[in-house]
């Protein structure tokens, strides 16, 4: 599926660009994308290192275990395949909480640690597990209490009330999160029956 989408982006883009005489732009874009990626990774990986460092303290001091056990009753329902008190629950909960405060950049390292931890209990290392998919559906629906970037952008453009989209965003993101989780659960159950 990703292979297909990726190929579509590139093939459709280049063919259309060539037809519309836009290949100069394409030329720069193709060559520049490695630079753009490097800049993005350079921006991200120090943050990842910072938070995996802090999280390692939480892990060694058993704080993470405590947190995992505390959230297990809630998250256990969403992730029935994760063993009770497994450390991945702690990472997942941290990722969700930090995302809720609109700190997407700080949440990513916790998400990556959660994926690594889920991979350890994954039976087939090249295939996504059900828990991984549920976790990523939660992430892609972007459940946020305060969309900080949008608010600051609205401030910049002179909104009389930059935060008045908080309520609408919250309603929309809640609906999409609930929908995502329901669809995820239905599909997971159907797949399990087929096997």
């Amino acid at each position: 599926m990703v292979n297909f989408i990726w190929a579509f982006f590139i093939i459709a883009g280049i063919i259309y660009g060539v037809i519309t005489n836009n290949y100069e732009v394409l030329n720069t874009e193709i060559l520049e994308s490695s630079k753009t990626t490097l800049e993005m990774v350079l921006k991200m990986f120090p943050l990842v290192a910072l938070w995996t460092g802090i999280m390692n303290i939480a892990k060694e001091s058993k704080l993470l275990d405590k947190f995992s056990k505390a959230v297990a009753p809630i998250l256990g329902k969403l992730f029935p395949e994760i063993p009770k008190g497994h450390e991945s629950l702690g990472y997942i909960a941290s990722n969700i909480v930090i995302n809720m405060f609109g700190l997407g950049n700080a949440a990513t390292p916790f998400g990556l640690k959660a994926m690594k931890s889920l991979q350890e209990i994954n039976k087939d290392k090249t295939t996504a597990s059900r828990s991984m998919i549920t976790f990523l559906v939660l992430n892609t629906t972007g459940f946020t209490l305060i969309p900080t970037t949008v608010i600051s952008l609205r401030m910049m453009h002179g909104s009389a009330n930059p935060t008045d989209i908080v309520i609408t965003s919250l309603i929309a993101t809640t609906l999409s999160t609930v929908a995502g989780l329901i669809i995820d659960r239905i599909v997971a159950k159907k797949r399990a029956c087929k096997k």
Partner: protein
Amino acid sequence: MTLISNIFIPLLVLFVVLYGIIKKVNVYDVFVNGAKEGVEIGISTFPYMLGMILGVNILIKSNVLDFILSFLNPFFELIKVPMDILPMALLRPVSGSASLSVLNNILQNFGADSFIGRLASTIQGSTDTTIYILTLYFGTVGIKKIRYSLWVGLLADLVGIISSIIVVSILF
């Protein structure tokens, strides 16, 4: 709310370090070891990000999206949704920075407190870059078969965008 956002991270760091010291953990050494792992994670994401950014940039800069959108025009006029919101809705799952720049343009051209300004803000605030997240997270741990995750994610995005349109229409 912004105050909570700002104070959250300092308090979290304080709490974790304090708890570590109380539990007699060698906090500095443990931090450095954890950070090492972070460096590895960060670098291992590069090839996946490169692939995705290459594809997304070609798609966006070639303007092929506008071409595809022109076919959807009549349909959107029919259901009375402003056309200008479409690039935003289509780009949101693909690229965070691209949809942010569309949002920026909308706020500039129509005003932050216009209907479409609020709608675009709500869409940006209520969904996330599905394709980017899946690429990054699955790529980092070496998952090749992502199964049904992509279309569940995109379907949820669609629900989010439709909900945004409905909620903003009702509340404003």
